[in-house]
């Protein structure tokens, strides 16, 4: 770590921090243990038997969605870069309208456990399920990597663990707890973890926001003035372009990112899977309404917290601290509430990582067990016990990957990694979901072209982007094989997947299954048969 290190140990009490976090873990473990009396059927394990209410699921949705990247990453981005960080908040929120209007109810009515259920409904099962599982696993992996990368930063702050080896150890412990949640609790336990976490997180940011506003006499302008005064960028933090306005390329990158944010939320497998945990489409709709409500509050609060961190902590101090940008919110908490609030905020951030990774793990394991094992390998003839067993085994494997990935990605900026996951989701899943729900000619070839076209172009563009090589911040900064100038591939890969899906459909001689298309149309709108 370069520069003077503002050690977290000087400003926090690791023992207290650990105690708060341990309390969260103990409470959630108890809840998970209590609610998970039986997880023997696939419906129980994957979808909590469809017994959550819209309100519960809505809060859990925001729990799944409000990741460490949202909390730490956005607050940090606003604190350092100002207005451009706010654009993340807006994109993440507006994105839910896609879910509300076009996705939630129809997906709930059509599928049972996974995204593959919807996509494969009227297509040839095996190739489409394989594609759906591939994209689910890739997206979950990227998203998970983002979460685990944040874990390192939080660990550094929370426990004053400075060494990489020590941080790795803590990441491993976190991963182990997460695996336990998923194995024991299934979807039901994981959902309760999300509900508890989301409630604490939102309560926490609301209290901080009210306090901050109060400190500045409830004048946003006064807060902004102070934020500008304590930021090295000055009043530029109130204007767009602080982060993305440097060159025409970065501006285009910003447009690309915005597209990925708004179109990605509806393609995230762990969000889609949540819609199966409610009994009917009306409750699915209600879930999204609750999610929009809680997230409006949350993202509104990030604006105040981000600028508040700039105002009270100052951009220089944030950038000099161990966790850099990601530590803006924890440092602000210490500034306004001392060691106690720092402990709570750090523990909440930690809990957030834990819960989101648990949600991703259950989604990825469900997709593997349900799409790959039960429907491809066993051709739909697997019994529930063996399917759930495979899902649990997969969860362990994915958990181990998450731990390793987290250790390797330790220190990368988390908000940006999440944006990449969104680009993947928007490119591979959204186009095919929309086509299969709304276009009756859409067929298997179109689905495969759309998914692999989107996913492939996304992977390719990222590989040749400044994210991987050719820039000082790249993963491999020593070699330069950069060909594509944008860090976020969305602006190219999203249209590519829509075009591929269209071309695959019209160019193939394959005819869509008319009966199945009619059945899907009826099911998706009315819920008959589900």
């Amino acid at each position, binding site marked *: 770590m370069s520069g003077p290190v503002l050690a977290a140990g000087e400003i926090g009490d690791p023992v207290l921090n650990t105690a708060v976090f341990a309390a969260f873990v103990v409470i959630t473990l108890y809840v998970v243990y209590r609610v998970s009396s039986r997880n023997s059927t696939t419906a129980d394990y994957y979808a909590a*038997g469809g017994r959550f209410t819209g309100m519960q699921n809505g809060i859990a949705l925001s729990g799944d969605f409000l990741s460490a990247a949202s909390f730490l990453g956005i607050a940090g981005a606003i604190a350092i870069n100002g207005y451009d960080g706010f654009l993340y908040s807006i994109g993440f929120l507006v994105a839910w309208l896609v879910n509300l209007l076009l996705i939630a109810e129809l997906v709930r009515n059509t599928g049972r456990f996974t995204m593959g259920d919807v996509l494969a409904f009227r297509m040839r099962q095996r190739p489409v399920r394989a594609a759906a599982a591939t994209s689910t696993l890739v997206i979950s992996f990227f998203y998970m990597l983002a979460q685990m990368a944040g874990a390192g930063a939080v660990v550094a702050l929370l426990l004053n663990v400075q060494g990489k080896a020590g941080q790795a150890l803590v990441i491993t412990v976190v991963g182990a707890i997460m695996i336990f949640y998923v194995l024991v609790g299934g979807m039901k336990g994981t959902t309760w973890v999300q509900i508890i976490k989301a409630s604490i997180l939102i309560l926490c940011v609301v209290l901080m926001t009210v306090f901050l506003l109060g400190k500045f006499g409830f004048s946003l302008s006064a807060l902004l003035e102070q934020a500008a005064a304590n930021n090295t960028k000055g009043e530029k933090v109130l*204007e767009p372009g602080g982060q993305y306005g440097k060159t025409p390329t970065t501006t285009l990158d910003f447009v690309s990112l915005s597209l990925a944010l708004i179109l990605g939320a509806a393609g995230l497998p762990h969000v889609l899977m949540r819609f199966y945990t409610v009994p009917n489409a009306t409750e699915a709709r209600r879930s999204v309404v609750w999610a929009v409500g809680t997230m409006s509050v949350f993202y509104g609060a990030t604006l105040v917290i981000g600028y508040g961190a700039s105002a009270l902590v100052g951009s220089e101090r944030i950038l000099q601290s161990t966790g850099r940008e990601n530590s803006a919110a924890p440092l602000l908490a210490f500034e306004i509430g001392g060691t106690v609030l720092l402990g709570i905020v750090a523990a909440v951030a930690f809990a957030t990582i834990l819960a989101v990774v648990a949600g991703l793990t259950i989604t990825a394991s469900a997709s593997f067990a349900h799409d790959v094992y039960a429907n491809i390998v066993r051709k739909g003839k697997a019994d529930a016990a063996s399917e759930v067993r495979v899902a649990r085994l997969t969860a362990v494997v994915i958990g181990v990957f998450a731990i390793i990935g987290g250790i390797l990605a330790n220190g990368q900026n988390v908000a940006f990694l999440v944006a990449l996951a969104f680009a993947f989701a928007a490119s591979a899943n959204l186009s095919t979901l929309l086509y299969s729900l709304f276009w009756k000619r859409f067929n298997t070839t179109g689905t495969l072209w759309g998914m692999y076209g989107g996913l492939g172009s996304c992977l390719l563009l990222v590989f040749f982007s400044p994210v991987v090589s050719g820039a000082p911040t790249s993963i491999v900064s020593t070699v330069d094989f950069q060909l594509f100038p944008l860090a976020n591939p969305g602006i190219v890969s999203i249209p590519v997947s829509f075009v591929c899906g269209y071309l695959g459909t019209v160019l193939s001689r394959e005819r869509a299954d008319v009966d199945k298309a009619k059945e899907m149309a009826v099911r998706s709108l*009315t819920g008959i048969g589900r």
Partner: protein
Amino acid sequence: MTEVVQSPAGARAAVPRAATFGGIGSGPGAQAPQGPDFAAIHDSAEFAALRSRFRGFVFPMSALFLVWYLTYVLLAAYAKDFMSTRVVGLVTVGLVFGMLQFASTIAITALYVRWARRQIDPRIAEIRAAAGVDAR
């Protein structure tokens, strides 16, 4: 047989299930002799009306918020001076537009929920009842 993972072929023969939310234990083994006639429902005038009404709302609404969001994004990207204009104190046009995105998102959500409750839910209930599926 307690629970059989459904192949979609099994899922197709939909069985009205009273007590099992989420379809526990509705494997192929539990198939009723005849499921709802999806093709007939699909070709009925009621369903056609429901579908065109649904699309008539969600498509324009989606286009609306997408265009409004993209306008905002493009302004932030390419009309920096305009977005940096101060409105009140240090509050810029950009910040106000950002807040308006929040407001429009909440407004569209509220609008959709109200519209769906009045225009869509009763029609779905009718079709479900006609198909012999338990109304919710």
